[in-house]
């Protein structure tokens, strides 16, 4: 189809909200201070697993400067109830017990009490004054221990969901199964079968801004919360349930957010700040330390995945099967389901079966990390497929092309794909000079693919026309990555005015209609749809105003380049009416012009990707270095290519860190040994080459500008791309991440 010519879509304007960010004026979670403000701190469990016999807060309350102390006794004891549409399966009872431990502490760092005091140092001293009587229990620190017959039980009332007649206390929270056909039959037809087991470690999203919140409460029972969050409406809804309030009693104003990647889509200390402010009648500020962020906020699951794939000699996949075990942390709800659904999604498979297990153990409750559960699943699947292609003697891209999902292919989780661009990413990778560039000694090239559904969910937006014809786009999704300018560009395209005349702002829970959180790569897609609809609403109103002035039928008025054009033969041959003039005359023609739209967005187009990674391996030290990285991703249509590339480059960098060096290290008593950026080794600038993001545009037919979500797919392929490259460089198949130098050197040495 011919590429439609757009004025702004596809260009790279400067984001106006960027000026505050490069000058330090932008206000993040911890930047707000209010008069009379108290400081809140959380007392955290020194044990990974213990029963709480009693908590004596009196000594803390007696400390001069301490104004309030709260424990789980100050929160309603909620019954178990699933949270609809949470980023990973969540239960309000679990959520409440993660905010403040009730009866038991379930991980080292688990919140036990919270104090509010006139200074940070007094609050910290008050924590030491709280007496907690713990009955220490044996800690469950790995999947084997959790699933052993005699395993210490975290939750006496937990029964395995998805297993017939499960009525015994267990740490196995759920068993799931997806797939179709008969995998045994498929494997029987295969000439070559590869079966391997892969493990990955618990890792953290690693956002640089620690969680921060300020809460203030009035005598009318209404609280206002400023915090860094991906979902202000989520914070409102979850805090209301945890505190036994109505959502209308809480207003959440999102600050700028210093990174989230799925980890700031839930709540931790926000309810505590609200509760402490209601108890003291004063604003309360709570800012986590980096150590608290690591110990007590959502990492993603460590996993063990056994994969089996079979193909005919001609390279046709006949069957794929997997058994995947995911750590959920202290409460049920790992991303085992999305992980299992996406594992083989890029491929045509008549026989596919994935059995998944969600396992609780004494570690922090996991939260979403970009495409939840998918990077680990792709590490296993794409490594096994790499080995299969090699044993078939096939080029890894040709092998994937021969089995690639296209429009109409049934996904492993059931439905047929609509218009998707996986084949286009594979072909682009094959054509690209990187794929055939020469490699030096001890270097290797690996490829891997990845997929994420992308979601729609609910969005509301408004476009307010100012009296000078400029516009303000109001949306309710915090801007993690440049979505304000992206929304403004779509509005400018619809209104036909220069981008400089459109500003975009993020509203709060009392100044915009309901919005789901900024996650699921949905903002440009779903909120974008609402903004386009709201802008078209403005155009309809402007056309009607022009029609009224010209006394013609509004249907006959056309809108182009920011002007209303009269129908031929209109009385008096009137001149076109520009947006500025119509806005200026709005008072005479009916009043202010406000466009609005709200929707439950459907038809979120999945995002596929193919990545090429070159590594060099120092055989004497085991160090793996990334030499070159190119990522091809079907982005539907890139509204602002700069920020789409940024999502891909950032996701690749996170994936490389996950593959090479990031991991939670635990001591024998279940405390994290590296809760800081020194020994939780995220990539620094000098660790990475430039990351070449190739935008493949196969427009998503269900979006006015063909948009697909782009934010989550990028961290799915890199784990396997790096591991496959290391295999190509060393001839060794690595099945356990991270590929740290000691682990690589040990493997290389055992070879000689």
């Amino acid at each position, binding site marked *: 189809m011919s590429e439609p010519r757009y004025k702004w879509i596809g260009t790279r304007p400067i984001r106006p909200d960027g000026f505050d960010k490069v*000058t330090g004026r932008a206000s*993040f979670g911890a930047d707000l201070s209010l008069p009379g403000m108290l400081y809140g701190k959380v007392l955290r469990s020194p044990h990974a697993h213990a029963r709480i016999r009693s908590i004596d807060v009196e000594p803390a309350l007696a400390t001069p400067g301490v104004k309030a102390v709260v424990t789980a006794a100050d929160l309603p004891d909620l019954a178990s109830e699933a949270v609809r549409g949470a980023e990973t399966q969540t239960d309000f009872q679990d959520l409440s017990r993660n905010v403040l431990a009730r009866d038991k502490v379930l991980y080292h760092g688990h919140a036990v009490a919270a104090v509010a005091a006139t200074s940070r140092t007094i609050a910290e001293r008050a924590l030491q004054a709280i007496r907690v009587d713990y009955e220490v229990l044996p800690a469950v620190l790995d999947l084997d221990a959790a699933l052993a017959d005699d395993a210490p039980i975290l939750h006496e009332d937990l029964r395995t969901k998805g297993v017939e007649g499960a009525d015994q206390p267990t740490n196995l929270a759920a068993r799931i199964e997806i797939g179709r056909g008969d995998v045994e039959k498929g494997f029987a037809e295969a000439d070559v079968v590869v079966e391997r087991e892969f493990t990955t470690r618990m890792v953290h999203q690693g956002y*640089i801004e620690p969680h921060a919140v300020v809460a203030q409460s009035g005598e009318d029972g209404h609280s206002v919360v400023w915090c860094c969050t991906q979902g202000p409406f989520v914070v409102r809804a979850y805090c209301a349930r945890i505190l036994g309030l109505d959502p209308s009693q809480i207003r959440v104003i999102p600050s700028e957010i210093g990174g989230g990647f799925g980890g700031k889509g839930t709540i931790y200390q926000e309810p505590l700040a609200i509760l402490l402010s209601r108890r003291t009648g004063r604003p309360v500020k709570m800012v986590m330390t980096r150590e608290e962020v690591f110990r007590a906020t959502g990492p993603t699951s460590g996993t063990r995945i056994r994969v089996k794939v079979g193909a005919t000699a001609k390279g046709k996949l006949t069957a794929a099967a997997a058994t995947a075990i995911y750590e959920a942390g202290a409460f049920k709800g790992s991303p085992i389901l999305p992980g299992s659904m996406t594992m083989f999604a890029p491929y045509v498979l008549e026989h596919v079966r994935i059995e998944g297990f969600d396992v609780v153990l004494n570690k922090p409750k996991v939260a979403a990390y970009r495409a939840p559960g998918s990077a680990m699943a792709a590490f296993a699947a794409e490594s096994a497929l790499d080995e299969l292609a090699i044993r078939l003697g096939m080029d890894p891209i040709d092998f994937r092309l021969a089995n690639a999902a296209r429009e109409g292919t049934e996904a492993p989780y059931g439905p047929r794909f609509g218009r998707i661009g996986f084949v286009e990413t594979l072909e682009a990778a094959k054509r690209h000079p990187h794929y055939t560039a020469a490699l030096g000694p001890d270097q290797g090239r690996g490829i891997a693919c990845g997929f994420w559904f992308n979601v729609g969910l609910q969005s509301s937006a408004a476009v307010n026309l100012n009296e000078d014809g400029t516009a303000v786009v109001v949306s309710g999704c915090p801007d993690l990555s440049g979505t304000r300018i992206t929304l403004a560009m779509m509005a400018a395209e619809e209104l036909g005015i220069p981008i400089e005349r459109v500003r975009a702002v993020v509203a709060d829970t009392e100044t915009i209609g309901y919005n789901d959180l900024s996650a699921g790569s949905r903002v440009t897609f779903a909120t974008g749809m609402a903004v386009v609809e709201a802008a078209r609403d403005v155009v309809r109103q402007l056309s009607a105003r022009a029609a009224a002035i010209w006394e013609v039928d509004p249907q006959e008025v056309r809108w182009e380049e920011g002007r209303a054009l009269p129908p031929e033969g209109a009385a008096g041959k009137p001149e076109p009416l520009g947006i500025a003039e119509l806005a200026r005359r709005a008072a005479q023609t009916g009043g202010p012009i406000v466009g609005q739209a709200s929707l439950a967005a459907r038809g979120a187009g999945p995002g596929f990707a193919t990545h090429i990674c070159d590594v060099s391996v120092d055989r004497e030290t085991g160090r793996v270095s990334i030499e070159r990285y190119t990522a091809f991703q079907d982005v539907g249509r890139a509204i602002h290519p700069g920020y789409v590339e940024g999502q891909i480059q950032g996701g690749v960098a996170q994936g490389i860190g996950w593959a090479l060096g990031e991991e939670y290290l635990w001591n024998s008593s279940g405390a994290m040994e590296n809760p800081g950026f020194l020994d939780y080794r995220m990539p620094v600038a*000098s660790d990475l080459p430039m990351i070449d993001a190739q935008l493949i545009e196969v427009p998503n037919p269900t979006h006015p500008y063909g948009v697909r979500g782009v934010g989550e797919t990028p961290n799915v392929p890199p784990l396997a791309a790096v591991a496959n490259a290391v295999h190509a460089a060393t001839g060794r198949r690595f099945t356990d991440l991270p590929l740290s130098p000691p682990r690589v050197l040990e493997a290389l040495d055992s070879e000689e």
Partner: protein
Amino acid sequence: MAKIHVEASVNGEPVEFLCEPRASLLEVLRDELGLTGTKEGCATGECGACSVILDGRLVCSCLVLGVEMEGRSVQTIEGIASAERLHPLQQKFLEHAAVQCGICTPGLIVAAKALLDHNPDPSEEEVRFGLAGNLCRCTGYDKIVRAVLDAAAEMRGQT
């Protein structure tokens, strides 16, 4: 603990403040002087979000004590732009879409300025090693390095 009176210079202007000896320069900037542009990411000198230039030296303000500032001068992100124009680094960060969430941006711009003050014509590798003390989790560093190289060229008069 009694507070100590300190006289120092921040972004070229004299300031006075009271602080406990254990208060870091980061806490003084943010809590006493209201300059919240300098950010805290770790408080252990490992993320660089609190970078400032202390008497011409790039440092982490979380690992400097407020009381050490007596008679010394510090430049923060708020002092990088001139009254009416952005510094070339700030402009290029915007033009290259090198800013996503922006929490690391103040520290990175201050660190890049200190780098270019000492080395006006750095190679890509020199930029990457010069900024290795500033963690960024959103961008993968690509566009940040390009923005710094572009700003360096402009500041050398070769655009």
